């Protein structure tokens, strides 16, 4: 590939066929071919000054992102260091959070983050897979674009607007129509115990679910579209019904990518801040009941970071940020690798990430 893009005029000049080419040593210093130690490198860079400059500029700009990632990580570790040294690993499984006494344990936030995200997945995955399967396999052609577009629009709604809607529409709705029957039927289990105040794990999970549906749906759809038609044809040819073809031939073929899509949604849910902060109740407590308030790592940073009462408190906030960052990076990297396995080299889902 590199050779093809080499400046053609130079190639012609070098081979001696274009002797009338104006020779300007200032712009083509490498015009006279010298023995080249690294031919591959040389051709990649081009020999023209403009080409070199162009490549150097773009490379410098491209280096901003890796630099950003490295400084981000370094700064989180440095900022969190006092807390890491003070509390060690137990930071992640102890649950006392007392800024005044200077004792910090993040277990309730970590629990709340995981619980709200899993609850969100529980609701969002069937919805999103339903959308993806319906759009790729069953829907009439004229309906495809409009539905895909509308579901994508869900991703365009700002987080804070979801939060507003959660406070004034979803929570009152839950209070009047959903929680009473839920409690009547399942109130005896620890999952639905306690008094319902409105702000709760349930409200946070539902809002999160609506927010991640478009991401999971978009990537799943692209994964299903990447499944070769021969898979479907083979199944149908063996007498499978349309659903059986989808469920036994198409879905298993794209399984890695679909799992990737779900993990991608999980990554989104873990780091979502505003909407969750506004509806989850922000109580530093571990409760099994989804009707009780909870706390997430992102919400804690949003609420406490700028109001940290001591250096140690600030360091603890940095450590929460570090844990959140590392977890989301791992989750996203897994998702990315899984999706790449299905659609190698293409940018499937990169916009949704």
């Amino acid at each position: 590939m590199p050779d093809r893009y080499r400046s053609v005029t130079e190639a012609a000049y070098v081979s001696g066929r274009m002797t009338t080419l104006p020779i300007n040593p200032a712009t083509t210093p490498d015009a006279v071919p010298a023995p080249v130690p690294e031919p591959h490198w040389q051709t990649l860079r081009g020999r023209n000054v403009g080409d070199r400059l162009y490549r150097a500029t773009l490379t410098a700009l491209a280096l901003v992102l890796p630099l950003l990632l490295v400084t981000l990580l370094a700064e989180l570790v440095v900022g969190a260091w006092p807390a890491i040294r003070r509390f060690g690993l137990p930071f992640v499984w102890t649950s006392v959070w007392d800024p005044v006494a200077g004792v910090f344990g993040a277990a309730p936030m970590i629990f709340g983050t995981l619980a709200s995200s899993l609850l969100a997945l529980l609701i969002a995955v069937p919805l999103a897979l339903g959308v993806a399967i319906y759009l790729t396999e069953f829907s009439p052609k004229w309906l495809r674009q409009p539905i895909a577009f509308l579901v994508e629009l869900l991703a365009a709604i700002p987080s804070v607007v979801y939060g507003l809607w959660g406070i004034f529409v979803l929570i009152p709705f839950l209070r009047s129509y959903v929680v009473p029957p839920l409690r009547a039927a399942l109130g005896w289990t620890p999952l639905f115990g306690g008094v319902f105040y409105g702000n709760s794990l349930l409200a946070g999970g539902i809002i999160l679910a609506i927010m991640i549906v478009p991401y999971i749906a978009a990537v799943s759809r692209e994964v299903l579209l990447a499944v070769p038609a021969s898979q479907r044809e083979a199944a149908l040819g063996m007498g499978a019904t349309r659903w059986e073809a989808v469920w036994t031939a198409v879905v298993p073929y794209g399984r890695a990518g679909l799992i990737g899509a779900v993990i991608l949604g999980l990554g989104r849910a873990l780091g979502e801040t505003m909407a969750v902060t506004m509806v989850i109740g922000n109580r530093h407590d571990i409760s099994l009941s989804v009707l009780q308030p909870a706390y997430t790592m992102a919400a804690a940073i949003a609420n406490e970071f700028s109001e940290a009462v001591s250096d140690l408190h600030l360091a603890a906030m940095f450590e929460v940020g570090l844990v959140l960052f590392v977890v989301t990076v791992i989750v996203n990297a897994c998702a990315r690798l899984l999706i790449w396995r299905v659609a190698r080299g293409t940018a499937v889902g990169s916009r949704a990430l």
Partner: protein
Amino acid sequence: MSGRSLRRHITSGLMTGLVAVLSFTAVLALVLILGDLIAKGASSLNWDFFTKNPVPAGQSGGGVANAIVGTGIIVGLAALIGLPIGIGTGLYLAEYGSGRLGWIVRFVADVLNGTPSIVIGIFAWTWLVRPMGGYSALAGSVALAALMIPMIARTTEEMVRLVPHSLREAALALGYPRWRTSLRVVARTALAGIVTGCLVGVARIAGETAPLLFTALGNLNFSTSVTQPMQTLPHQIYEYASGPFAEWHRLAWASALVLMSLVLLLGVTARWAIRQRHGSAR
């Protein structure tokens, strides 16, 4: 048709119906949210809302002029910082991205795309708010720019890759050096796609609140100084929605409607344009 076959066909029909219902449920959520925004926000939109600044808590009236202007400044500045870097990174990935560095940059872009925006806020706080000794709109812009770069980079790369090789080869054959081919021929051909990608990116960051919480902070007064705290629409919505006053809630809905219209206008135009151009009707 035997009983077993009949059952299989019924299952197939039921599941088809189920996935259709699930699809419409997802669409219903969107319709409900947009409907509530209009129902609760539209009635508060008037001249005062756009031209007046907030009044002290408890009083009625007032508007969000400061937040609208603030959003414009912070997002504009973020675009100024983020777009060149994002587009440059995208061009790099498309032109020279086949090597190891390309792989790393692409992977980092995808990882950063999934990084919680609040963590990016901590980044801007450490590097700008703390050294400068106070919250500032500039810090907010940098945080938003950092959120935007990976998005812009990946869409730019995709758009540039869509340009046919033949075009590039033709330019090179005519004696254009590589850099001019890349800028004048390839990037220009992909320009519409790149611009729409940028619009989507700007729309996405315009609605961000989390990274602004401890960078731009918010401001009750009208301010255009980028070294001072500045109010933005998302932050205004957050403050008003969390407050106890009915008047604030009314303004929060109206602000949300304005923000949503802004984001949709940017996003929908961009997406529509991209469809028109590339006809990715699959």
